[in-house]
C-alpha cells in the first residue's frame, strides 16, 4: 500500500464511520466509484467487530509477566541445588530470586538467593561479590540473619542464608505504629546488629523496614547486611550513585515511598557513605516504628529527595510517651550533616536501653549516666587492646621460632583431642599449611566425621563447622582455605578466616584426593579421571581419560606444581596389586609422561624432590621439574607411617614449605574384641591392624574383616588371619556373607564383587554394580542384595539387586536425605536402615519389599543398625552407646523404647554401616577397639633438610 492510497482509505473509513450503518453502503459506492479494491479494503476494516474494543487496550507491559515466566530461566522451584531442595519463591530481591529451600543434610529450611546468570558469568564481579559476602558471613550475631554458605555448582551461583520466619517491619507498619515500648525494643536490637557490623567495618547501606524481620518470639533480625555494597557491580567504577535497592511501596495513605525515604542526604547526593548513613536510616526506621509514618516522604521521588535534603521530620507526631532520651537520639540520628550526626550507634543503643529500663516519663538521660556508659565502653576497649598486644606477642614469637630454626629439623607430636579418631580410610586424611603453622585432618567423634584444625602456636584442636562427612582434605596455596570431598561426592571449600563453606562441584570421587594449584584451580577425580574446576566455581573440564587398553582404573592423588602447569598423579591399573605409575601431566597441552614406574601419592618437595609412596614407605628422589625426570636413584625416606585402610596411600602430607605431617604406623590400629551385653570385654585378635567391618559367618565360626585394603578371614577358635581377597581387586572392604556362608560380597574400587570362601580365591564382579556401591546385606534366600548407591539428585540411597541376575538394581529407599546401613531382618520381611531425613541420623525399619511404611526405631538419634538373628531385637549405636530395641508383631510392628546396653568407646568409622557384628545367640558383640589411645599426628618441621641428606642430588 502506498501512503497516498492509504490516506484515501482512511479518509473514506472515517467518513463512513460517521454515517449510520444503513447509509454506509451507498456512501461507499459513491466514494470509491469503480475502485473495487479500495471499497473492499474499507469494507473489511468497517467489518471488524466493534465489540472487541479491548483489543490492544491493555498495555503490552502487562504481558511481561507471562513472557518472562520462562521455564528455562526463572523458577527453580521443585529443583535441587546441591543438598538443597528448592521449595518456593519467596521474592525477587536486589540480587535475583530468593527461594525457600530445604537443606536435606541438616534438615532445616534456608533461604537461597540465586544470583542472576548475568552476574555470575563475570568472574570479577563474582569474586568481588564473594569476597564481600565472606566478610558478611563473619558477622555472627543474633540480630543479623546469618549467611550459611555458597553454592557454586552447575552454573548456578547462590548464597545460602538463614531463613527468618515472621513478617518484615514494612509489613507490620502497614497496620500502623508500634507501641512505644515495642518500638524501643526493636530499635535496640537493630542498633545491636548495626553495632556488631560497624565494629567489623561493615556498613549496611540499605537499612529499611523491608530489610528487617520480626520473629514471632520478639527477636528482630536485620537482613541483607551490606549486600547493597556487595552486590555485584555495586559501587564499581564509582558512578557516584547511592548503592541502594530502590523499592516502592504504598503506605496506607497511598503515598509512594521509595527507598529514597531511608536514604541519607549524603547518599542521595551520591557521595561516599560510611556508618553514619546507617545511623541516619536507623533514625528513619525508629521514627517510623513510633509514628507509623515515614520520616521523609513525598508524592514523588523528587519530593521525597527534597524532603530528605531539606525538610525536618514532623516531631509533633511522636507519641507522648516517647522518652526524652529517645527523642534526642532520633534528632541526633536525623541530623542532615553527617559531621554533626550521632557518630556511634552504640550511643543510641545505650540510650534506648536506659529508656527501656526506666519508665518513660522519669528517665532524663542525665550526663552522669551517659558518662558511666562511656566509661564501660572505654574499659572494654582497653581490654580489647590488651588482647591485641597478646596476639602481637604470639605472632612475634612464632616468627622468631620459624626464623631461627629455618634449617633445623624439628619433630613434634600432636595428640588428637580425647574421643576424636583419625579417619584412616581414604588418604589424604590431613594437610599442613604451606608455612607449616596449621594442621588439619579428618576426624570422627561419636560417629560424626568432620575436619579438625590446629594452629601450631595454639593448644586447641577445633572442629570446622560445615565439614561433615569430609574426605580427601587439601589446602589452598595461600593456606586460607581447605578443600574436601564429602561422602555424598560434593567438592567443597571452607574459609579458615570466617568458616564460610562453598560447594564447588558435585559427583566427585572422595577416595582419590584433590589438589588446589597456584593458578587457583582445583583438580579432582570424577569417574576415575582427572578433572579441573576454578576454585571460585565454574565449569569443570576433563583433563585425562582412562586408557582401557592399559587397564587403567583410576587416576588418583593429583598434586599441582609449577603454578598448576604440571599435575603429578598416580595411574592405578587393574593388572595386579600395587600396579600404579606416577605420571606427570603438562597443562594445557595435556601431555602425559610416566615419571616413576611404581608408586602412588606423589608430592613435590620444595627441596627439588619427588616424594611418593610404595610398599608401606615414603620414597624420594631429586626431580627435574623441567624435564619431568627423576635425576638420582630413589631411596626410602620415611618408614613406619600409617597407610589408608582402603587405598594404598599413606596418611601423610607435605607442605609447600617442606614440613611433613603423618600418622605413625600404629595410628588407628585396632584389635577385635568380644563385648558382652553388659560391656565385659574379651580379646579376639592379638595382632593389631586397622580392622574394619567385622562380619561373623552365618555359623558363627569364622569372621571376615577388612584391613589394609584386603579382606581377611579368621577362624574364631584360632587367632590366625588368612587373606581372602586376591591381587585382582583393589580397595577391598565392606564384606557381607551370603546366608549359606559360601561367599563374601564386598566393595572394590570398581564396584561390588563376590569371592568364594573355600580358599579357591575365585572372585567375580556383581552384574549391574557401579564404582562407589557399598554392599549392606543379603536376604535369607541369598538372592537379594541390599546396597548403598550415591545419587547426584537424592544423595545416598538404598538399592536392591538380584544376585541371580533376575532383576537389575532398583532403589528401595530414595529420598533427598542420606540413607544407608540397610540390614534385612533374619526372616527377610523387614529392612532396618539409617537415615538423616529428620535432620539427624535415626534408625528406621520398613517392610520389605513393601508397602511403603516405616517405623522409627531410635528416638534420640542412632545409626549402624543390626538385627539380632532371632529377629526379636534391633541394635544400633549412638556415640559410644550400644542400644537395643525389642521388636514384636507381625504385620504391624511393635517397638519397645530403646535401652542402653553399654557405653564404651569403640571405633565408629562409617556413618551408617555397622562397624561391629552380633553373635548368632545375640549375647555378645564383635567390636573394633582402638588400641592406640587418643591417637596422634607426627609433625616434622623442615623435613626437607632430612630429605636432602637422604636423597642427595647428583
Amino acid at each position, binding site marked *: 500500500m502506498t*501512503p497516498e492510497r492509504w490516506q484515501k482509505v482512511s479518509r473514506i473509513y472515517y467518513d463512513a464511520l460517521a454515517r449510520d450503518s444503513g447509509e454506509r453502503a451507498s456512501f461507499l459506492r459513491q466514494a470509491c466509484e469503480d475502485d473495487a479494491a479500495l471499497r473492499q479494503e474499507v469494507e473489511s476494516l468497517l467489518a471488524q467487530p466493534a465489540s472487541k474494543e479491548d483489543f490492544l487496550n491493555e*498495555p*503490552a*507491559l502487562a504481558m*511481561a509477566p*507471562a513472557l*518472562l515466566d520462562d521455564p528455562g530461566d*526463572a523458577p527453580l522451584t521443585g529443583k535441587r541445588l546441591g543438598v538443597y531442595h528448592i521449595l518456593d519463591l519467596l521474592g525477587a530481591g536486589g540480587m535475583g530470586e530468593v527461594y525457600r529451600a530445604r537443606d536435606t543434610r541438616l534438615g532445616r529450611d534456608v533461604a537461597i538467593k540465586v544470583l542472576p546468570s*548475568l552476574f555470575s558469568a563475570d568472574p570479577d564481579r563474582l569474586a568481588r561479590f564473594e569476597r564481600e559476602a565472606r566478610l558478611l558471613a563473619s558477622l555472627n550475631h543474633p540480630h543479623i540473619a546469618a549467611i550459611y554458605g555458597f553454592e557454586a555448582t552447575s552454573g548456578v551461583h547462590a548464597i545460602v542464608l538463614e531463613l527468618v520466619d515472621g513478617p518484615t517491619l514494612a509489613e507490620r507498619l502497614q497496620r500502623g505504629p508500634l507501641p512505644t515500648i515495642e518500638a524501643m525494643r526493636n530499635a535496640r536490637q537493630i542498633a545491636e546488629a548495626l553495632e556488631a557490623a560497624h565494629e567489623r567495618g561493615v556498613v549496611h547501606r540499605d537499612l529499611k523496614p523491608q530489610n528487617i524481620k520480626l520473629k514471632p518470639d520478639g527477636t528482630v533480625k536485620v537482613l541483607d547486611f551490606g549486600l547493597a555494597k556487595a552486590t555485584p557491580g555495586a559501587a564499581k567504577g564509582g558512578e557516584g550513585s547511592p548503592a541502594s535497592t530502590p523499592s516502592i511501596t504504598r503506605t496506607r495513605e497511598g503515598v509512594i515511598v521509595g527507598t529514597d525515604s531511608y536514604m541519607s542526604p549524603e547518599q542521595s547526593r551520591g557521595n561516599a557513605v560510611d556508618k553514619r548513613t546507617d545511623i541516619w536510616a536507623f533514625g528513619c526506621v525508629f521514627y517510623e516504628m513510633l509514628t507509623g509514618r515515614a520520616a521523609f516522604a513525598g508524592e514523588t*521521588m523528587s519530593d521525597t529527595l527534597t524532603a530528605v535534603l531539606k525538610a525536618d521530620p514532623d516531631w509533633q507526631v511522636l507519641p507522648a510517651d516517647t522518652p526524652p532520651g529517645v527523642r534526642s537520639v532520633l534528632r541526633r540520628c536525623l541530623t542532615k550533616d553527617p559531621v554533626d550526626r550521632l557518630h556511634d550507634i552504640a550511643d543510641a543503643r545505650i540510650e534506648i536501653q536506659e529508656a527501656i529500663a526506666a519508665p518513660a516519663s522519669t528517665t532524663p538521660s542525665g550526663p552522669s549516666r551517659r558518662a558511666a556508659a562511656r566509661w564501660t565502653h572505654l574499659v572494654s576497649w582497653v581490654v580489647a587492646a590488651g588482647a591485641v598486644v597478646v596476639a602481637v606477642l604470639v605472632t612475634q614469637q612464632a616468627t622468631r621460632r620459624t626464623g631461627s630454626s629455618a634449617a633445623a629439623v624439628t619433630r613434634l607430636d600432636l595428640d588428637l583431642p580425647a574421643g576424636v579418631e583419625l579417619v584412616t580410610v581414604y588418604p589424604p586424611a590431613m594437610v599442613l599449611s604451606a608455612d607449616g603453622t596449621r594442621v588439619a585432618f579428618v576426624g570422627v567423634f561419636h560417629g560424626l566425621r568432620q575436619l579438625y584444625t590446629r594452629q601450631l602456636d595454639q593448644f586447641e584442636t577445633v572442629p570446622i563447622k560445615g565439614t561433615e562427612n569430609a574426605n580427601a582434605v587439601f589446602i589452598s596455596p595461600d593456606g586460607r582455605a581447605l578443600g574436601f570431598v564429602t561422602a555424598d561426592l560434593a567438592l567443597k571449600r571452607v574459609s579458615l578466616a570466617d568458616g564460610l563453606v562453598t560447594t564447588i562441584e558435585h559427583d566427585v570421587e572422595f577416595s582419590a584426593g584433590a589438589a588446589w594449584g597456584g593458578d587457583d584451580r582445583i583438580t579432582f577425580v570424577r569417574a576415575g579421571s582427572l578433572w579441573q574446576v576454578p576454585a571460585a566455581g565454574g565449569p569443570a573440564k576433563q583433563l585425562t581419560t582412562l586408557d582401557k587398553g592399559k587397564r587403567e582404573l583410576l587416576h588418583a592423588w593429583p598434586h599441582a606444581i609449577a603454578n598448576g602447569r604440571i599435575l603429578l598423579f598416580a595411574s592405578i591399573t587393574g593388572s595386579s596389586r600395587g600396579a600404579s605409575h606416577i605420571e606427570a601431566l603438562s597443562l594445557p597441552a595435556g601431555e602425559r609422561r610416566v615419571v616413576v614406574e611404581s608408586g602412588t601419592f606423589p608430592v613435590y618437595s620444595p627441596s627439588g624432590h619427588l616424594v611418593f609412596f610404595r610398599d608401606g614407605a615414603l620414597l624420594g628422589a631429586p626431580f627435574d621439574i623441567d624435564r619431568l625426570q627423576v635425576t638420582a636413584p630413589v631411596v626410602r625416606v620415611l618408614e613406619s607411617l600409617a597407610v589408608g585402610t582402603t587405598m594404598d596411600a599413606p596418611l601423610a602430607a607435605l607442605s609447600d614449605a617442606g614440613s611433613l605431617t603423618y600418622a605413625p604406623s600404629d595410628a588407628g590400629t585396632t584389635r577385635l574384641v568380644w563385648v558382652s551385653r553388659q560391656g565385659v570385654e574379651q580379646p579376639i585378635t592379638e595382632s593389631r591392624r586397622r580392622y574394619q567391618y567385622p562380619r561373623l559367618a552365618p555359623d558363627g565360626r569364622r569372621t571376615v574383616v577388612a584391613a589394609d585394603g584386603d579382606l581377611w578371614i579368621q577362624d574364631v577358635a584360632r587367632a590366625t588371619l588368612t587373606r581372602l581377597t586376591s591381587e585382582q581387586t583393589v580397595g577391598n572392604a565392606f564384606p557381607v556373607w551370603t546366608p549359606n556362608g559360601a561367599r563374601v560380597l564386598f566393595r572394590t574400587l570398581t564396584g561390588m564383587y563376590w569371592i568364594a570362601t573355600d580358599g579357591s580365591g575365585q572372585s567375580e564382579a556383581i552384574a549391574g554394580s557401579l564404582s562407589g556401591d557399598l554392599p549392606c546385606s543379603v536376604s535369607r534366600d541369598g538372592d537379594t542384595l541390599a546396597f548403598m548407591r550415591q545419587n547426584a539428585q537424592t544423595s545416598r540411597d538404598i538399592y536392591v539387586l538380584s544376585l541371580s541376575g533376575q532383576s537389575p538394581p532398583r532403589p528401595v529407599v530414595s529420598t533427598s536425605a542420606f540413607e544407608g546401613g540397610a540390614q534385612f531382618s533374619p526372616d527377610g520381611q523387614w529392612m532396618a536402615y539409617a537415615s538423616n531425613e529428620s535432620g539427624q541420623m535415626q534408625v528406621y525399619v520398613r517392610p520389605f519389599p513393601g508397602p511403603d511404611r516405616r517405623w522409627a526405631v531410635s528416638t534420640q538419634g542412632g545409626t549402624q543398625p543390626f538385627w539380632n538373628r532371632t529377629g526379636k531385637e534391633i541394635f544400633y549405636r549412638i556415640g559410644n552407646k550400644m542400644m537395643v530395641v525389642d521388636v514384636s508383631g507381625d504385620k504391624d510392628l511393635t517397638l519397645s523404647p530403646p535401652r542402653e546396653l553399654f557405653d564404651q568407646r569403640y571405633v565408629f568409622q562409617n556413618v551408617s554401616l555397622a562397624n561391629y557384628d552380633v553373635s548368632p545367640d545375640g549375647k555378645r558383640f564383635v567390636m573394633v577397639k582402638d588400641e592406640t589411645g587418643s591417637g596422634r599426628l607426627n609433625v616434622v618441621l623442615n623435613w626437607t633438610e632430612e630429605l636432602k641428606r637422604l636423597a642427595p642430588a647428583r
Partner: protein
Amino acid sequence: MSPLEASSGSVTRLLLAWRAGDETALARLTPLVHRELQRIARGCMRRERARNSFQASALVNEAYLRLVDTQHVNWQNRAHFLAMAARLMRRILVDLARARQYRKRGGGAIRVSLSEALTVPDQAEDLVALDEALSALATFDQRRSRVVELRFFGGLSVEETAAVLRISPETVMRDWKLARTWLRRELSK
C-alpha cells in the same frame, strides 16, 4: 550502582545516550531493563496471587517509576524520552516473545487473541505478529504506527501520546481507532 537495581537514573542516562546515537547504550540498557522488568513482573504476579487480581496499570506505573526518571528530565526532553522508552519496551518485549516462540516452535503454539491477553498462557506468537504488522503499517503510515507504539508498548495515555507526537488528543483517538482496526484485521488474516 548495580545494573540489577536499574535505578531510574542510569536508565535515563542510557536512554539519552541511545537517542543521541550511541548504539552501545542499547546493549547496556537491554539487560538492565530486562532484569528490572522481570523483577517488577514477578512482584506483580506475587501480589496478583495474594489479592487474586492483576492490575496491568499498576505494573506499567511501577515500571515507569522505576525505569524512567521523568522527574529528572526536562520538559523538552520528556516527549523524546517517553518515545524512546516505548521503542525500547517494544524491542524488549518482542524479543522476549520471539525467544519464547522459538523455544515453543514445534510445540504447536496456538494463536490467540491479544484481547485475551492475561488469561491465556502464551501470547508470544501474537506479539511477534503484531510487531510485524506494526512495521508494515509504518511503511505507509508512520504516525499511526507510532501512536500504537506509544500507547500499546509505551503504555502512554492519549494526552501523553498527543504531547509526544505534537498532535491533538482527538487525532490520537482517531488514529488509534483506525490503526487498531487495521492491525486487528491484519492479525486475523
